[in-house]
């Protein structure tokens, strides 16, 4: 049933929506135009002006500058997102479909991790990683992301599996499938979209992470791209136009994933918020 608004009212609604679209796009517009200008043209006075010509020198400099850290982020994010989604798919299956002693309590104890301020565990984390020679290594950061990704992936998969009807599992059991058979032949194929949701969610979170990266892997050579961006923007020796080009490179993967797979991204967003 549609809402009948007078034409003036509808015009007002669209005006507000367009205003806010401009609000959300302005910082992105600013990143783009600044990254396409030569240094002489990024001054305070011409800040809002469109670039007069396409100046690609920033990119020629930003890409080699950021490439090593970009690849570090790929090396960290891809395995960590895959492993934590795989773990989450098993955990979510158990929590959604099986009762075992204190399963609800244990699920809540895991969920707590979503709200944990990491400052409360960073010092022991560094100590333990150092002890196992994982501190300052990409493998160490992947491990950390897998551990702290467990709560959210368990939640995403649990809510996804909860929609699978019990009759389907009963039928599978009659056919002789056990715990793993039901998971492999019934749940996992059904949950393929759920897997994509968790994967996208973890990819975005891990790619955009700064805190764990700067604590575990601050070595500039091995650091993820968020840490590298922060290093170059913190020093005033790097020009603004170059900083913006680097920031665009850092933002591109998650933005592209979002634009291509927006629907799955939104589902992760809603599952993660546990609407209550």
């Amino acid at each position, binding site marked *: 049933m549609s809402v009948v608004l007078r034409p003036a009212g509808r015009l007002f609604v669209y005006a507000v929506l367009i205003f806010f679209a401009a609000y*959300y796009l302005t910082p*992105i517009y*600013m990143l783009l135009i600044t990254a396409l200008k030569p240094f002489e043209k990024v001054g305070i006075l011409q800040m809002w002006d469109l670039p007069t010509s396409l100046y690609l020198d920033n990119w020629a400099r930003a890409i080699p500058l950021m490439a090593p850290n970009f690849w570090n982020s790929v090396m960290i994010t891809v395995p960590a997102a895959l492993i934590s989604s795989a773990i989450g798919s098993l955990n979510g299956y158990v929590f959604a479909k099986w009762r075992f002693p204190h399963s609800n309590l244990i699920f809540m104890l895991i969920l707590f991790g979503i709200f944990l301020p990491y400052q409360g565990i960073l010092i022991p984390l560094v100590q333990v990683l150092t002890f196992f020679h994982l501190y300052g290594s990409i493998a160490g950061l992947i491990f950390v992301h897998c551990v702290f990704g467990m709560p959210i992936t368990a939640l995403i998969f649990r809510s996804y599996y909860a929609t699978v009807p019990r009759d389907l599992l009963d039928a599978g059991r009659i056919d002789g499938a056990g715990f793993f058979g039901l998971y492999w032949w019934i749940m996992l194929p059904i949950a393929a979209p759920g897997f994509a949701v968790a994967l996208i969610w973890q990819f975005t979170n891990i790619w955009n*992470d700064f805190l764990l990266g700067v604590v575990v892997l601050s070595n500039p050579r091995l650091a993820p791209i968020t840490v590298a961006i922060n290093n170059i923007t913190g020093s005033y020796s790097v020009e603004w136009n170059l900083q*913006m080009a680097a920031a665009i490179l850092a933002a591109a993967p998650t933005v592209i994933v979002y634009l291509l797979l927006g629907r799955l991204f*939104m589902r992760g967003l*809603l599952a993660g918020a546990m609407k209550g």
Partner: protein
Amino acid sequence: LPEAGLQSATGADIVGPRSFTAPAKRRPLRAWLKSDTFWACVVISPSVLAVLVFIYAFIAWTFYISVINWNDVTPDLTFVGLQNFVRLFQTPRFITDLRNTAVFSVFFLGQCLGIGLLLAILLDQKIKGEAFFRTVFVLPFAVSAIVTGVAWKWLMVPSSGINAIFGAVGLDFLQNKWFADPHIGIIATSIAGAWQMSGYTMALYLAGLRGVPGELRDASKIDGANDVQYYRYIAIPLITPVTFSAMIILGTISLRLFDLPASMTGSGPAFATDSPAFFMFETTFSQYRYSTGAAIGVVMLILALGLIVPYFFTVKEEIER
């Protein structure tokens, strides 16, 4: 609905909407080892162990570090009780940080919930191009806080950026020094944060509004309610749970505030844009005052409990369904 799957520890039962109560009889060990519940426990236990160690044992360990005197590179395990906390609360920077957290939370939540609800209601009006608007509104959520900070740092340059826009449209009185102003620095930070998260809040609200049964809207129409009254008296009260979980999620983000100060200004003038998380990081990893850093971590954990406890009371029902 009868309690599904309430059973003995050894019974294997698939939990589902249909009720099924397994007989509560003891089975021999061998049967238990073959049972599906056993495998469920086996699969879940590494994760449970990891969570117990990396979250709960680490929290306990942080508490321990906060009551010893390890404020240098070499560990000093002398027990000093609450001395680190007493000194922390006498440190002006920490008091400023707590105030910043409070101010940031209020402004950040205010913007996110206000803009989020407004945009969700507007998008709920059968808008042409809704998908476009939705995509644009949520886009910043896909961008990292670090990149957000870089962009807003540039936009909030006092001598140009947003100030230039305000000047051009005759809103000169709104011009200010943003994060360079000791009084409003943290509010400037909250503007950058809200840019990132208000679209996310909109998405939560929109899902909530779409979940309101259509008959309620029809009924309210028949009763003569206009749109404003429909939202004011029916839809918004019905989506209170959305507001509640949004507040808890956004509150958690406020408490953890770290990336934005790191990428925009650092601590700022007179710690105007400092946060407990940023202070904790510098104390621990630049100054090696581990026990003081742990004490900051403990204070943050206690503040987080204030958000987590109400959340758990609400999700408890949902989980146990």
